[in-house]
C-alpha cells in the first residue's frame, strides 16, 4: 500500500526507490531493487511498447544491415565489441573496456538478467523457453519469420526449425481479420525453403470458435477468453483434431489469456500434435499477458505498481529531490532516495517531439543520436531515411539519452547528471530495437543492472 502524507504543503509519497515506467525495463529494475527489502514504487502513466509486443523476448537478432545472429550470446558479444554507444556495449564496460572483454562482460550481464527474468516468470507460473546460446525462429500472423531468443512455451513450440521434414497446419478463424491462415500458410511455404527448412507440407484450415460463429471483427482477446473456458476449449480441441489430419504441428493465433499453457497442453493432448501460438500484432494477447505477469511478479516481490501516475517533471539540485506526479485530479510529490528512469521511447512517452526537435520528457536530459551527436538543434526529419523500413532502421528510433557503465544518465559534459538517477530500456540511445530485434534483451539487461545499482 502507498501511504500518502498529507500536509498543508500538499500530498507526498515517500519511498526508497521510484521507478518511472512499468514496462519490461521498469518492472525488472523495480523487482531487482526490491530484492534488498527496499520500498519500491513503479509509477506508470498507462502503457508503452512492452504491452504491444508480440510476446517473445528478442535479445540480439541482427547486426544490421545483413548479419543474422544464430545465437543471442554471439549477438550480444559482437554488438558489445563493435557497436559504439550500444547499451550492450555500455553494460560490458563501455569505451574504457577492451572490445573482447566488453563482449564477455556484457554477455555475462545479459545472461544474469535473463536468468532473473526467466526464474521470476516461472515463479508466477509462466514458463519461458529458449537460451542465449541458440536463437529461435518464430513466425507470426503474416507468415514471415524472425530470430528471437526466449519465448513463452506456448510460442516456443513453434520454433520453425522443428518443421523440417514434418507437416504443419496453420489454423485460423473466419472473421478474425488480423490473421488469415490461408495467406500465412502460403507465405510460410515460400519462406521456409529460404531458411533451409523443408517441411513435408504447410497447409491451412479454418475452425469455428463456439460462440463466435458467423462473426466478423473478432478480436484476439475474444478468442483467448473463449479458450480459457474449458467447455469451449474441448470443442476447439475436437475441431482441431478434425482439421489436423496427420500433421505433427498446429499453429493457432492465440491460446488464452488466463491459462495459456494449460490450454495448449489440453489441445496438444486432444490432437496428438505439437500445438503452438503465433507471435502476434497489436492488440497482442501475449504482450498483454507478459505485462500482467511482470506486474504480478513485481507486486509479489513487494513493489507497489501503480498505473494512472503520470510523471510531470522533477525537482533537483545535484540529485533528484522529488517528482511531481499527476494522479487523477491531484498533483502528488514523490520523494525517493533513488530514481530509475525507464520511461520508454516515443510510444512509452520517455521521448517526445517538441517543435521538430527530440526531447526527453521529464528531466530534459540531453538526447543523442546513436553515433553520439547531440540532438538539441537537429531537426527530427533529418533522422529519417527515405525508405520506410530501411536496413538498420531509422536513426530516429535509435536516439535517446546517453548513460555511463553504471547506467547513470550523462550531461552534455559527459558526467552523470544526477547522483541518484539511473536509466534503463528504450529511453537509452544507441540501439534500434526494430532493426536489431533486441528490444526486450536491452530492456531486461539494463533494467536488471539499473535496479542492482540503484539498490546498492
Amino acid at each position, binding site marked *: 500500500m502507498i501511504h500518502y502524507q498529507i500536509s498543508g504543503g500538499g500530498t507526498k509519497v515517500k519511498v526508497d526507490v521510484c521507478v518511472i515506467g512499468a514496462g519490461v525495463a521498469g518492472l525488472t529494475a523495480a523487482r531487482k531493487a526490491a530484492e534488498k527489502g527496499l520500498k519500491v514504487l513503479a509509477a506508470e502513466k498507462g502503457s508503452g511498447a512492452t504491452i504491444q509486443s508480440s510476446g517473445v523476448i528478442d535479445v540480439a537478432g541482427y547486426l544490421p544491415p545483413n548479419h543474422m545472429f544464430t545465437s543471442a550470446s554471439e549477438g550480444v558479444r559482437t554488438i558489445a565489441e563493435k557497436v559504439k554507444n550500444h547499451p550492450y556495449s555500455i553494460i560490458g564496460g563501455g569505451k574504457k573496456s577492451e572490445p573482447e572483454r566488453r563482449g564477455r562482460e556484457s554477455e555475462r550481464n545479459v545472461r544474469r538478467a535473463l536468468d532473473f527474468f526467466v526464474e521470476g516468470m516461472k515463479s508466477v507460473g509462466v514458463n519461458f523457453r529458449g537460451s542465449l546460446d541458440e536463437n529461435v525462429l518464430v513466425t507470426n500472423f503474416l507468415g514471415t519469420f524472425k530470430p528471437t531468443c526466449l519465448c513463452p512455451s506456448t510460442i516456443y513450440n513453434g520454433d520453425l526449425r522443428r518443421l523440417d521434414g514434418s507437416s504443419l497446419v496453420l489454423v485460423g478463424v*473466419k472473421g478474425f*481479420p488480423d490473421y*488469415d491462415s*490461408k495467406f500465412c500458410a502460403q507465405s510460410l511455404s515460400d519462406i521456409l525453403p*529460404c531458411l533451409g527448412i523443408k517441411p513435408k507440407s504447410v497447409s491451412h484450415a479454418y475452425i469455428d470458435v463456439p460462440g463466435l460463429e458467423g462473426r466478423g471483427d473478432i478480436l484476439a482477446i475474444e478468442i483467448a477468453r473463449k479458450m480459457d473456458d474449458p467447455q469451449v476449449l474441448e470443442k476447439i480441441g475436437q475441431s482441431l483434431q478434425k482439421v489436423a489430419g496427420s500433421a505433427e504441428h498446429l499453429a493457432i493465433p492465440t491460446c488464452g489469456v488466463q491459462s495459456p499453457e494449460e490450454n495448449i497442453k489440453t489441445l496438444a493432448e486432444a490432437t496428438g500434435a505439437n500445438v503452438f501460438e503465433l507471435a502476434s*500484432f497489436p492488440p497482442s494477447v501475449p504482450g498483454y499477458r507478459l505485462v500482467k505477469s511482470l506486474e504480478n511478479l513485481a507486486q509479489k516481490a513487494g513493489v507497489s505498481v501503480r498505473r494512472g501516475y503520470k510523471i510531470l517533471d522533477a525537482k533537483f539540485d545535484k540529485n533528484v529531490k522529488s517528482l511531481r506526479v499527476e494522479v487523477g485530479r491531484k498533483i502528488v510529490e514523490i520523494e525517493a532516495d533513488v530514481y530509475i528512469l525507464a520511461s520508454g521511447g516515443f*510510444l512509452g512517452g520517455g521521448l517526445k*517531439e517538441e517543435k521538430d526537435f527530440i526531447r526527453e520528457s521529464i528531466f530534459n536530459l540531453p538526447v543523442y543520436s546513436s553515433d553520439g551527436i547531440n540532438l538539441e538543434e537537429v531537426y527530427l526529419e533529418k533522422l529519417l531515411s527515405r525508405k520506410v*523500413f530501411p536496413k538498420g532502421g531509422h536513426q530516429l*528510433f535509435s536516439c535517446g539519452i546517453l548513460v555511463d557503465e553504471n547506467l547513470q544518465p550523462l550531461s552534455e559534459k559527459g558526467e552523470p547528471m544526477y547522483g541518484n538517477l539511473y536509466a534503463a530500456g528504450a529511453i537509452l540511445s544507441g540501439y534500434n530495437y526494430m532493426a536489431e530485434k533486441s528490444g526486450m534483451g536491452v530492456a531486461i539487461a539494463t533494467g536488471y543492472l539499473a535496479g542492482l545499482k540503484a539498490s546498492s
Partner: protein
Amino acid sequence: MFCLKEEYDVIVIGGGSSGAGTARDCAMRGLKTILLERNDFGSGTAGACAGMISGGVKYLDEPEMVELCTKEVVYLQKIAKHIVFRLPIITAIINEIDLKARTSKKTDYSKYTALRGASPIMLLSKEEARKIEPKLSDKILLAAYFDEMFIDPFRLCMLNALSAKNHGAVVRNYTEVIDIIRNGDRVEGVIAKDKRTGEVEEIYGKFVANCAGPWVSRISKMAGIDQPLRLNKGSHVIFDRRVTGVGVVCRALDGRSVYLFPHFDTTVLGTTAWDIFGSPDDAETSYDDVEYLISSIEVAVPSIREARVIRTMCGVRPMLPEWWITEDEATRNFKLVDHEERDGVKGIVSFEGGKLVIYRVMAEKMTDLICKKLGIKAECRTHIEPLPGAEGEVDIELWSEEYNMPTHTVGRIASRHGSNTPEVLKLTRENPEYKSTICRCESVTEAEIRYSLRNEFATSLSDLRRRVRLGMGPCQSTFCNFKALAIIADELNLNPEKVHKDALDFAQERWKGKCVLLRGDQVSEEEINQAIYAGVANYDTLPDFWRRD
C-alpha cells in the same frame, strides 16, 4: 510483342479527371474507346488536390471562366451527388495590408452563386465570423462568407472510368504508353506496356486523346510533337479530423492565398505554387513548403500547430505555357489542342491547362472535336446521366437495419458508393466475416475492399486507398496494412512475395507523405508501425530474403 489488329476510334491516354471523363463521353456516344492509365486512376494531379470544385470564386477576373465553372458545379451536384459535399468557407481578412489589397473584381460572384444553389457572398464582422468558426484568431479584422462544393477526386476519376467501361470502353490501369505509332503525318496508335505482366502490345486507333496532364509533353514527344507546358507544383498538409468546422481562407505570408478545408474526416491545408523544370515524377514536398503553409494559416487559425499532422502530398499542375506572369495571374482555363491544325500531325488531340471542376466540359469539347473529325453525330449526355452510385437514393438507416451493420459504417460506405451501397453490403450475406472492419480510421470493411477489388479496377493496397480511403486516417495504414494484404492475396490470387511487396509499396507510399513532417502523436504511431512491420514481421530484411538463388 503482339498486335491488336482491331482498331479503336479513340485511344485515351491518362486516367485522371480529363482522361477518364473523355473516355466516358466517347464511350457514351458510341465510339469504340480504350482508356490507358500508366498507374491508377486519379493517382496523378487529380488526386493531389483539395477536391474543391469551385464555382469560380478565384477567377473573378475571368467572367467566362466563372460562368463555365458554375454550370459544371451544378452538373456535378447531380451526376456525382454521393461524392459531392458542400463546405461553408470563411475568408478571414487578417490585417491592414490584407484589407488594402482586396480590390473589387470584374464579376459579381453573387449572380452566379444563386445559379448553383449556393449562398451569396456575405460580409461578416469579426465577432460574427468567430461565432461561426470559434477557432478564428481574435486579431482578424473582417471576414467574408461563401460556400463551395467539394468532391472526392479519386472516386470521380474511377467512376468516370467505370462508366466508360459500362458503356463498352476497354479500361486499363497499370498500362503505360511507351511510344506512339506514327506513320508519316498521321498517328495510328500507341505501344503500351502492361506494368504488371510486362507484356508490350500495339494498340491501333483513329484518334489518340492525350489527356496525360503534366505528362502531356512526354506523350506528345513520342509523336514527334513539341508541346511545352508550364509545370507547377502544389503541396498540401493533411491534418487529422476537422480542425475547423468550416473552411478558412486567408492571405499567405507571401501575399498569395492559403486555405484550410475540412475534407471528410481530415483537414487539408494548401497550397503552394512552384514552377518545376524537372520531371513531374520527381516532385516532392519540402519542409519549407510545409512550414510556409502552416505559418501562413496560423495567422487566421492560431491553434493549427496543435493539430495532428498525418501526412503531406504534392501534385503538379499542367498549366498553359504562359510565362512572365505569376501562377495566380495565369488562367485556369483549358486549351483543347488539335495537333492537325497546330502541328500538322493528324490523329492526335490533347489538353493543356484545366481544372478539376471543368473536367466534364473539357471532355465534352474533346469528344465533340473527335466526333466531328470522325463524322459522327452524337449528343453529349455526360451532364445528364449519373455516375455509378448517383442513380438512386441513399437510406443509411434502412440499410443498416437490413444488413445488420452499424449505422456509422453504412454511412461511410454510402459516402463512397452512394446508391450502390447495397451491392457492397450484399457481400456480407453469404460471408458474414466480410463485415470485419479492416481500416478502423475510415470504417473500411472487408466487404467494401472485396467489392472494390472485384468491380473498381483496384489491384493493390494503394489502389484501395484511392477507392475506399484505406489507410488514409491518422494511423496511415499501420493497422490496416497487415489485415488488408491477406484479402488482396485471396481476391486476386497473388503469390505471397507479390503481396508482401505490395504491402511494402503501400507502406512506402504512406511514408513519402509522412517523412516530410513527422510530429507529435505521429512519431509514436510511426514507432508502432516500425515495431510491427520491421520488429515483428521483419519487413526490413525480407526483400533480400526473397532473393533465392
